[in-house]
């Protein structure tokens, strides 16, 4: 985020909505905290007051390991007969892009004089990043995590606890991210005067979607510079997986103005329309099917941008997986990190206006993507990122000659799930997993 033109930044970022999406739909008790956060966002993040952004960047460099490489994937390039570059967010400290936001928010909470950090987590990656950031900055930290996710993401639960965070399993509903978010909102409503809620994605009430996006925008900013250096031009397409959408918006934000449409040039950066067109693909979790089971209130997918309808959840107007009557559905993905019935409001807006193309691949394609990258490139990707790699396999012909794929995190946390899910299937890209039994 450029801080060179604070007046301009302030004007464009004080809006609480993106088109019709966004807003602040929260209990009254939280509204003063959101105002306080908005004020802190404008002062510290947009205007670099007290050198906040300088300290953030320095800590991301020294503690977080930034910048991450943009790596040419030689064998994928050969396989698809085009140039494929991987943005290696799996190399950020902790193993995922999540630290960019967690460290930013915990530091911001410190600048705001808050005494305690709470967060929700799905796959555990955001909880882990928050626990690490809180330990690094010496703040007490509690993490809410759905019971199902606690069970399927045990390594991350241990990591959080090792970093000194308390992990609270949430038993309600299907025990996934949605329930964890509800519970964290409840904690926050009780402790709002002293506690900061580190929301883990570009979701929730204003200013969270912008705040999180700005901390994550470093991904796309680096990638944009790096691809220019390495390939001499901008990519034809950028591909990122989308659950709530934080790595998606982080990767896309700097590329949004790279199109002829003046709406995005002006709104997103204040820069004039650019010559180069970059297509943006948000790859969602197609789960086992894109069809909705209306009777059971189940979506066997998490493809909110592709199949959702407009509504209000967790503080924002956005696209949701919901019944006709407005009840939020249980979503599904083989990847706990994508398993959410909502999505960031800015992504809803960018998809609605056609700037971002929402696409999806199913669980099986994601698992194949996981194995393929591991085999061909020696990188074990997170199951989230594996969706982007699954899409690359299925649709590379549509992506142009030069493609950047964001590898949002590493897959160590997913090994148990991958082994279990691979055993159930006959996957073309998988090794023989039965070997692991003996």
């Amino acid at each position, binding site marked *: 985020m450029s801080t060179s033109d604070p007046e301009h930044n302030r004007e464009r970022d004080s809006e609480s909505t993106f088109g019709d999406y966004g807003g602040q739909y929260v209990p*009254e008790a939280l*509204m003063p905290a959101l105002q306080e956060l908005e004020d802190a966002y404008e002062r510290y993040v947009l205007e670099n007051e007290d050198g906040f952004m300088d300290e953030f960047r320095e800590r991301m460099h020294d503690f977080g390991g930034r910048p991450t490489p943009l790596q040419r994937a030689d064998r994928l390039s050969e396989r698809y007969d085009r140039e494929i570059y991987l943005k290696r967010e799996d190399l950020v400290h902790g193993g995922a892009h999540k630290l960019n936001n967690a460290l930013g928010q915990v530091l911001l909470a410190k600048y705001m004089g808050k005494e305690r950090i709470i967060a929700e987590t799905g796959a555990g990656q955001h909880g882990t990043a928050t626990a690490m950031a809180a330990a690094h900055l010496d703040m007490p930290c509690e993490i809410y995590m759905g019971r199902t996710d606690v069970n399927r993401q045990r390594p991350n639960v241990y990591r959080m606890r090792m970093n000194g965070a308390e992990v609270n399993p949430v038993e*309600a509903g299907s025990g996934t991210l949605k329930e964890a978010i509800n519970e964290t909102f*409840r904690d926050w409503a009780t402790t709002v005067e002293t506690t900061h809620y580190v929301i883990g994605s570009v979701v929730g009430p204003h200013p969270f979607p912008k705040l999180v996006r700005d901390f994550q925008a470093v991904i796309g900013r680096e990638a944009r510079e790096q691809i220019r250096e390495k390939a001499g031009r901008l990519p034809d397409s950028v591909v990122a997986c989308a659950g709530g959408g934080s790595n998606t918006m982080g990767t896309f934000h700097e590329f949004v103005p790279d199109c002829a449409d003046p709406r995005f040039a002006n709104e997103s950066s204040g820069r004039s329309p650019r010559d180069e067109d970059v297509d943006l693909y948000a790859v969602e979790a197609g789960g086992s099917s894109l069809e909705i089971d209306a009777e059971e209130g189940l979506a066997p997918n998490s493809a909110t941008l592709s199949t959702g309808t407009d509504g209000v959840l967790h503080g924002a107007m956005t696209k949701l997986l919901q019944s006709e009557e407005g009840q939020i559905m249980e979503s599904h993905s083989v990847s706990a990190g994508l398993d959410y019935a909502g999505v960031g409001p800015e992504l809803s807006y960018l998809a609605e206006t056609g700037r971002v193309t929402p696409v999806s691949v199913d669980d099986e394609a994601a698992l194949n993507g996981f194995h393929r990258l591991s085999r061909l490139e020696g990188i074990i990707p997170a199951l989230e990122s594996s969706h982007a790699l699954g899409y690359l396999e299925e649709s590379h012909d549509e992506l142009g000659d030069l493609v950047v794929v964001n590898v949002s995190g590493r897959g160590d946390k997913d090994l148990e799930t991958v082994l279990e899910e691979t055993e159930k299937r006959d996957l073309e890209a998988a090794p023989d997993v039965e070997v692991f039994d003996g």
Partner: protein
Amino acid sequence: MTDDSNAAPESDIETAIRENDPALITYITAGDPSLEDTKRYVEALDRGGSDLIELGLPFSEPVAEGATIQAAINRALDAGTTPEGFFELVDDLETEAPLLVMTYYNMILQYGSEPDVRPFVERAAEAGLSGIIVPDLPAEEADPLREACDDHGLDLVFIVAPTTEGERLETIMSQVSGFAYVQARLGTTGARADVSTATHESLERLSEYDVPKAVGFGVSEGDHAAEIVEAGADGVIVGSALIDIVAGSDDPAADLEAKAEELKRGAVRGAESLTVDAEDTPEPEQP
């Protein structure tokens, strides 16, 4: 709002509170455990002395509720409670106490074919509801719903939290209709063993506004009701303590009626002690 010269005519809700001051406002979740049971329970609460009854229309993500009401909502959803079933229940109800619906914003938006608040408000008015409370709709986002409610003569009740102060308090109090729902403490709904000091502070902050004030979040006993009325409230709101009866009693209707009577007696006792105090002030020796 202290200047009454331009005040709108009193609504059913405002009248119900002012005429019954101190008023008892009761809440139960519609459809817990079934809509037929809810009908009997609402009638019992009405007989027991409720001056206003809130009916919860269940939403799957009730972020402002504690464990008790969340469980009630889950039971109601498991029983297949729908917005249309809810409205049919209200169509059937004949109570002395006016009825309000308490639900989350998404439920209001989704009623009808496109996301829009109007079909819900029209149906609510047709069913005979007198007002709406939406725990996740702060005043800043409420324009569309407020306009629709105004057009159909419904009150839109706003919550005042312990954290609501200064300009926000002004804004909310200028938009309040029916009554101000004073949140007794930070956090979510749920029966508590005591009355929070935040209640006293909130009522103190609101004392200059000539709007009925009712206190909820954590009220469960007649003694709480008395203390809250003594602190200056015009009404007390009780929910989770009633849900506990719905979930755990052998004869919920009878026990709900008895609980309402206890709470109402408590509120009246609080008002009487205020009167005694007031009489005492000039002549302390008079009984």
